């Protein structure tokens, strides 16, 4: 058969099933429950304002370095801003403050400020978090019992609200303070943080002076922390989740003074270098972290620490960010991913720490890495996680079918004792658990609704928990 024409044009129709070049499957650090979003890399606040004004029904969300373990920094079908393109910052040496765009990482800030004699007021267990993420999750560090969480050190910030308006927010100005504190710990659902100013800690040296003690069991760890933590700026305990005793290693310290350095070190007191170590292999099978390997790791970790050591000098990375030494260490859990169960309970409910470790062991999900610390007073943010008491963080593989019921059972204990879970780690709690344990949720929602009347800011976490 002969063709009847030469200029027949095919009509092309946009398929609603076709992908786009901006499509990305996003997960949190735990690599569970992916969803697709349209990821853009804004080059200015104006880009973000325009996108918010043009937002579709699935909404928008800002994402930093993706270190939240669960679904806080992803939003299915939404337009997600990769904020790491906006990462410049200024150090004000006179004032002792940094003013940073939201996408600036603690890593790059530390490289600039440590040699100048400053340290960030709060750092998480990784330095690969952005300033925006640190505020949105109101992160805490080993100094919470003394200095509180990150939001408490922020003196101002600018935020783009749900109407695309740029707002200047202050923690103390009555006109904006409710919006400021709703954004601290607000998980990115009140607006897009553009930049922020926060106070720094002056340091004499880049070394940490650390006291280490191995503790024979969990009671030993906890009683030493109750007795001695107030004498230390930084304190954290690592717990052996496999040993029946719950033995642990307590490391506490402060920034070393110049007089603690030897002559060679004193020549470069503020030298700051981060080790560049290998990354974990790209593919790891499920089940590599089994009871035997977890036991072996915990044994080795316990043995690697001295029985007791006083005033030992450590580098900032080795004291604060030991896991940053292995890039992409989250891959070791295999394709099914993992989650971190982190709660805080009041002192009187410290027994939940032991119960948690034993219940995880019961179902064959012993925590690979377990960290215990004490929190000081809460701040003014309605959704901020820290409150006085014990906080335990346990890493467990997600592929265990018995984990869900056990964590629900532990949730019930945590809630009934007045505790709560950390939203930056959460990937599975129920909406009712959240509502019950964050009594100021309604107050936060009122402010959020004012800042975002159209409901533009959405995340998988927000949808999952009916925030």
């Amino acid at each position, binding site marked *: 058969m002969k063709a009847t024409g030469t200029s027949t044009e095919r009509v092309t129709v946009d398929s609603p*099933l076709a992908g786009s070049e901006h499509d990305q499957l996003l997960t949190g650090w735990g690599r569970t429950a992916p969803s697709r979003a349209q990821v853009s890399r804004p080059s200015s606040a104006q880009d973000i304002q325009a996108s918010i004004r043009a937002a579709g029904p*699935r909404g928008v969300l800002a994402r930093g370095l993706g270190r939240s373990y669960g679904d806080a920094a992803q939003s299915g079908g939404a337009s997600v801003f990769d904020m790491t393109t906006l990462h410049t910052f200024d150090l004000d040496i006179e004032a002792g403050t940094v003013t940073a765009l939201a996408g600036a990482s603690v890593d790059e800030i530390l490289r600039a400020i440590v040699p100048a004699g400053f340290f960030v007021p709060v750092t998480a267990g990784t330095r690969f978090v952005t300033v925006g993420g640190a505020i949105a999750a109101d992160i805490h560090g080993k100094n919470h019992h003394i200095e509180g969480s990150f939001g408490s050190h922020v003196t101002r910030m600018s935020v783009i609200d749900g109407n695309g308006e740029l707002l200047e927010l202050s923690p103390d100005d009555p006109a904006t303070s409710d919006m400021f504190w709703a954004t601290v710990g607000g998980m990115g659902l009140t607006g897009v943080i553009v930049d922020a100013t926060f106070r720094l800690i002056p340091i004499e040296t880049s070394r940490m002076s650390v006291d280490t003690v191995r503790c024979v069991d969990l009671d030993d760890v906890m009683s030493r922390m109750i007795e001695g933590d107030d004498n230390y700026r930084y304190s954290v305990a690592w717990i052996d989740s496999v040993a029946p005793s719950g033995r642990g290693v307590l490391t506490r310290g402060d920034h070393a003074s110049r007089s603690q350095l030897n002559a060679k070190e004193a020549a470069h007191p503020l030298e700051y270098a981060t080790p560049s170590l290998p990354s974990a292999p790209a593919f790891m099978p499920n089940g590599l972290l089994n009871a035997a390997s977890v036991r072996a790791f915990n044994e080795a970790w316990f043995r690697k620490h001295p029985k007791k050591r006083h005033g030992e000098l450590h580098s900032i990375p080795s004291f604060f960010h030991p896991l940053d030494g292995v890039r992409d260490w989250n891959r070791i859990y295999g394709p099914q991913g993992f989650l971190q169960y982190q709660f805080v309970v009041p002192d009187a409910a410290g027994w939940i720490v032991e119960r948690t470790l034993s219940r995880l062991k019961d179902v064959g999900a012993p925590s690979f890495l377990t960290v215990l610390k004490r929190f000081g007073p809460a701040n003014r943010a309605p959704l901020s996680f820290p409150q006085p008491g014990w906080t335990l963080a346990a890493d467990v593989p997600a592929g265990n079918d018995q*984990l869900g019921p056990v964590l629900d059972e532990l949730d019930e204990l945590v809630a009934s004792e007045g505790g709560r879970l950390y939203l930056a780690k959460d*990937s599975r709690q129920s909406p009712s658990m959240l509502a019950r344990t964050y009594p100021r949720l309604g107050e936060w929602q009122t402010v959020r609704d004012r800042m975002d009347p159209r409901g533009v800011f959405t995340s998988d976490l927000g949808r999952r928990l009916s925030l």
Partner: protein
Amino acid sequence: MIDALGEPQSVLVLGGSSEIALATVQALPRARMRRVVLAGRPSSALDDAAAELGNVGIPTVEVVEFDATATDNHGAFIDEVFDNGDIDIVILAFGVLGDQMEVEADPSQAVHIATVNYTGAVSVGLHVARRLRAQGHGHLVVISSVAGDRARRANYVYGSTKAGLDAFAQGLGDALVGSGASVLVVRPGMVRTRMSAGLPEAPMTTDPDVVGKTIVHALRKGKHTVYAPGPLRFLMTAVKSVPRPVFRKLPQ
């Protein structure tokens, strides 16, 4: 959202009185389940299914009218369900078997079987896929059949509709790669349900709850195809390799 531990919050069943679909919903973890939508033609079986799910503690069970043959309405129907909230799992479970002998005597019955099992499923399947892609997550579970693997004298009209549906579902799954949504093709063997009542049992005949558990396991593992029961995969590999003159003579 299906959470980190595989707990879904919402399910849509197309063919809401399907025993396989009901068993699947029953086999899903329930701790986070908020909403199950049963869509089908009004019937006492549909109401019974809703009551049963209400009894096991699912907070919201909606019953909505849905006709697989009314393809003009499928788009608006699916939009209405999804506009009320994301759907984590859609189970496409409707289908009719028909009686092969009656069908041969009255081809208009064949048209009906093809319209429900294939045309209707393709229509609503594409609308579901559009919404799953837009929300960036979710699973479409398509109940195919081993009858589509190899045509049999006893039910080839039904089998041919399932063969078409199966091919459609496979292609749809490929179209959705990278979208956050996925398609699971389920190929049950003979299952003891209303549909098969009175028929002689084939080898490896199973019960709806076995199929339900198999589907839930396959979803958790992220599979794209599953036979139910699982070992049926090997039997069907053998069946497909039997030459036609021989296959014809096997007991059907």
